[in-house]
């Protein structure tokens, strides 16, 4: 049986800050992106200006999360 998980990814300076690139948490333990951050980082403070995405689309912290979702946290972008 597939476990009902949410995949969490961290990029760039935020990956170094939280000390991991990717983790999984149980979908039943979280309802929003903000809750995903707290559970996957052991309640670290969310750095100001952090950008968030669910399934590779930008969202806000109160966006709902469902099983199978990929949630990502990253700092302001600096490409180009």
């Amino acid at each position, binding site marked *: 049986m597939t476990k009902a998980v949410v995949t969490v990814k961290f990029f*760039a300076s935020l990956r170094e800050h939280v000390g991991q690139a990717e983790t999984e948490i149980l979908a039943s333990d979280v309802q929003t992106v903000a809750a995903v951050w707290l559970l996957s980082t052991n309640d670290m403070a969310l750095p100001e200006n952090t950008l968030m*995405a669910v399934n590779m*689309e930008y969202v806000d912290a109160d966006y709902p999360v469902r099983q199978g979702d990929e949630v*990502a946290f990253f*700092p302001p*972008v*600096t*490409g180009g």
Partner: protein
Amino acid sequence: MLIEIKDHSFEPYDSVLEYQKSAGFSGKYGATAVFVGSMRDFNEGDDVQNMRLEHYPGMTEKYLEKISKEAAAKWDILDSLIVHRVGEMLPNDPIVLVAVWSAHRAAAFDASRYLMEELKSRAPFWKKEALTDGERWVAKNT
């Protein structure tokens, strides 16, 4: 419309010519706007030795596709091409290419500007610079 993320050095003007030859707008275009962004050997007053560019595989391509479609809806253009580097880079290396083809110049100018500004403000890429005395993440785009 083409989006390419490259993990090795590329020659942007060759990319423009190759795409132009293979694309289906031969004889239709009167204007080509080309923007190339390259790596400097200085940033915020410091010498930069080299740089590593990281991205969010999947989301980056999705976002660049989204803005390419937006540009095609907003302006009367024939086609667009975006190429962006990731990985290890040295000063003078091209980082990004945006090329837009249209019948008349205004649409190509405007759409290429739009693509570059949207890419810089929202596409998930991050730069880490190596200075003479250590590394640092670039904090914000100029």
